[in-house]
C-alpha cells in the first residue's frame, strides 16, 4: 500500500497547465452570446504526468482482488479474468451507438441475444432482460413486473410483499418504490423461513415474496418448493434475489423450484469487475407468467438477423438504451470460456471453499447456524471481552486481507460474513485461516492490538461521526 498522503487534484493544480492537447479550430469562430456564458470554472489545471501519478498513487491505496484476498460476504469477490477486459475493450463495441440502426449494430445485438440465451439456460427462464444496471435495479424491475401482473388481471388488492428478516435492505426499499408495503417474515431456528409465519401472512392481499436463496446466512432454503407452493396458492408470485447465484450455477435452475422472476448480479456470479462500486448488471429472468412484462427492449432473432424488440406487456424502460453493455460483454466472455461444465465447477468449488473455511474457523469463531453452508457462512466476532467484530475486521487488514462483510445480516449479532469464492487456492485459504486464528488469540491476550487496528494503512480509523455531523462533501479551496 502507498502510505504517503496524496494531495487532492485541486492542491496539485497550477494555473495554465493542461493535460490534453486538442485540435486547433478549423472552422470560423462564432461568438457565444454574453447572456449564456459562464464566468468561472474552478477545475484543477494539471499536466498529464501529474494526472498519471495522482491516479496511480491513489490506486495503490486500495485493496482489490488483483492484490489481496477479498472474502467480502454476499459480494462474490471472485477473480475477474483479464480476457473479459480484452473483450470489452474491442473497438467494435466502443464506437457502437445505441441509436444507430439495428443493421449497424448486428454485433452488439447478437452478443446481447447470446447472453440472454445463456442466462435463460442457467436459470431455466422463459425470457430475460439485460437492461437493469444493478441488482437493486433488477429487483425494482421484478417488483414492478409483479405489480403489473396483478393489475393486468384486475387484481388491485395485492399490495403486500413478504420479505424474510435476513434479506438485503434493497428488497424492502424496492418494494416501497413500487408502492408495495412489506411484511417481515422471521427466520426459524435453522436459519430458514419460518413456515408458520409465512402461512399466517398469506392472504389475498399478498403480491408475492422476495426470497434470497441461498439466503444471506449462506444457507440453502430447504423449503423453497413448499414456500413457492404456499405463496402461489395464495395468488402471489415468487421473486428470487439472485445475489447468491454463485452457489447454484449448474447445480439448480431457480425456475425449477417455483421462482417466477429473479435477478442475477452479473458483477458477482459472472465475474465482471465491481469497479469500486459499479457498474453492474441486474439481469431479470422470468417464467411464463411474467415474461411478457419484462423491461426492454431486449434482443430478438429473425432468421440470421438480430433486432431489439419490446416485450409485449412491458413495464417500460428501466434506463435509457439497453443496459450496461460493456458489462454484458465481460459476462458473456466468461460464460463462453467456462461452458456448462465450468459453471458447475464454479459453484462446486465456491461451496467447497466456504465449507472448508467454516470447518477450520468455527471453533474459534462461533457460527450461529452450524449447518453445512453454501458459498458463504456467517460467523460471530464477539467471543472475547471488549472486542467487537469491527476490531477483528480491522485487524485482518494488518494481516493483508480485506475484511469480510460485517454486521450483516442483521439477525446475527456481531456478524462476520465470509465468502471465499472459487477462485482462491487452498494455500490462500490456509493463510487466511492462520491469520484468523492468530487474531482470535490476540483478541484474548492483547485486545488493544485489535482495537487500534489497522496499523499500516494510509489512514487509521476515521471519525465517521464527525464526518456525518458536519459533512464536508466537496473541496473548499
Amino acid at each position, binding site marked *: 500500500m502507498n502510505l504517503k498522503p496524496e494531495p487532492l487534484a485541486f492542491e496539485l493544480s497550477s494555473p495554465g497547465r493542461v493535460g490534453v492537447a486538442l485540435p486547433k479550430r478549423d472552422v470560423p469562430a462564432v461568438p457565444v452570446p454574453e447572456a449564456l456564458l459562464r464566468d468561472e470554472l474552478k477545475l484543477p489545471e494539471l499536466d498529464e504526468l501529474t494526472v498519471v501519478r495522482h491516479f496511480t498513487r491513489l490506486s495503490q491505496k486500495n485493496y482489490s482482488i488483483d492484490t489481496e484476498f477479498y472474502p467480502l460476504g454476499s459480494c462474490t469477490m471472485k477473480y475477474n479474468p483479464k480476457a473479459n477486459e480484452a473483450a470489452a475493450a474491442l473497438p467494435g463495441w466502443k464506437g457502437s451507438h445505441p441509436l444507430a440502426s439495428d443493421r449497424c449494430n448486428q454485433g452488439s445485438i447478437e452478443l446481447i441475444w447470446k447472453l440472454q440465451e445463456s442466462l435463460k439456460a442457467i436459470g431455466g427462464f422463459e425470457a430475460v432482460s439485460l437492461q437493469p444496471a444493478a441488482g437493486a435495479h433488477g429487483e425494482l424491475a421484478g417488483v414492478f413486473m409483479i405489480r403489473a401482473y396483478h393489475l393486468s388481471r384486475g387484481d388491485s388488492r395485492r399490495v403486500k410483499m413478504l420479505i424474510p428478516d435476513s434479506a438485503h435492505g434493497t428488497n424492502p426499499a424496492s418494494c416501497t418504490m413500487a408502492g408495495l408495503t412489506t411484511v417481515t417474515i422471521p427466520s426459524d431456528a435453522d436459519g430458514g423461513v419460518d413456515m408458520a409465519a409465512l402461512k399466517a401472512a398469506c392472504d389475498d392481499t399478498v403480491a408475492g415474496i422476495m426470497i434470497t436463496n441461498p439466503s444471506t446466512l449462506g444457507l440453502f432454503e430447504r423449503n423453497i418448493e413448499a414456500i413457492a407452493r404456499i405463496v402461489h396458492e395464495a395468488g402471489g408470485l415468487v421473486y428470487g434475489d439472485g445475489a447468491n447465484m454463485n452457489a447454484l450455477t449448474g447445480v439448480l435452475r431457480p425456475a425449477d423450484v417455483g421462482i417466477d422472476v429473479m435477478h442475477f448480479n452479473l458483477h458477482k456470479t459472472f465475474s465482471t469487475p465491481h469497479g469500486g462500486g459499479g457498474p453492474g448488471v441486474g439481469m431479470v429472468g422470468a417464467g411464463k407468467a411474467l415474461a411478457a412484462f419484462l423491461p426492454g427492449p431486449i434482443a430478438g432473432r429473425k432468421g440470421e438477423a438480430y433486432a431489439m424488440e419490446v416485450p409485449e406487456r412491458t413495464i417500460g424502460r428501466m434506463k435509457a438504451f439497453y443496459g450496461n453493455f460493456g458489462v454484458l460483454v465481460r459476462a458473456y466472455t466468461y460464460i463462453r470460456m467456462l461452458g456448462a461444465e465450468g459453471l458447475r465447477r464454479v459453484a462446486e468449488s465456491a461451496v467447497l471453499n466456504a465449507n472448508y473455511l467454516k470447518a477450520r474457523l468455527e471453533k474459534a469463531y462461533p457460527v450461529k447456524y452450524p449447518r453445512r453452508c453454501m458459498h458463504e457462512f456467517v460467523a460471530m466476532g464477539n467471543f472475547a471481552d471488549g472486542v467487537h467484530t469491527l476490531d477483528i475486521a480491522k485487524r485482518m487488514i494488518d494481516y493483508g486481507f480485506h475484511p469480510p462483510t460485517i*454486521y450483516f445480516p442483521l439477525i446475527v449479532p456481531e456478524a462476520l460474513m465470509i465468502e471465499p469464492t472459487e477462485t482462491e487456492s487452498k494455500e490462500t485459504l490456509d493463510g487466511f485461516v492462520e491469520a484468523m486464528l492468530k487474531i482470535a488469540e490476540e483478541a484474548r491476550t492483547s485486545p488493544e492490538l485489535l482495537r487500534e487496528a489497522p496499523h499500516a494503512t494510509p489512514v487509521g480509523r476515521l471519525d*465517521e*461521526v464527525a464526518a*456525518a*455531523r458536519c459533512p464536508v462533501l466537496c473541496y473548499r479551496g
Partner: protein
Amino acid sequence: MSVDKNSRYRSSHEWARKDGARYLVGISDHAQEALGDIVFVELPEVGKQLKQGEAFGVIESVKAASDVYMPMSGKVVAVNDAVSGDPALVNREPYAGGWLVAIEASAPAEWDGLLDPAAYEAEAGKE
C-alpha cells in the same frame, strides 16, 4: 440507563413532561444509548398538528436511523434548534437540553395513559 422521574414514556422510547402550559418531548437515555453517537436530528415545522403515535421526526446515528413518535397529540409550538446545531446534545442530556419539540397538548389526559418511570424502566430493561 437513567429515567427522568418527572416524565412519562412511550414504549418506543419517547418521553413527555409538563413544562408550564406546554409539554416537552424527547427520547430516553436508553434510546440515545442504543442509537449511539447521534449525527443528525430532523424536526417538524412549528405549527404542525400531530396525533399520538404519529412520527414527527428522525434521529440518525452513523449506523442507524430511527423515527420518533408523538407520545401525545398536539400542535408543535417550538422545536429545539440547539439539537439541530449540536445533535450530540441528545446523547449528553436526553432529558434536559436535548429535548426535541414542545407541544400544546390537545388531549392532556393522554399523558396519564403513558408509562410511568418505573414501568418504562422495567420494559426498556427487557430489551
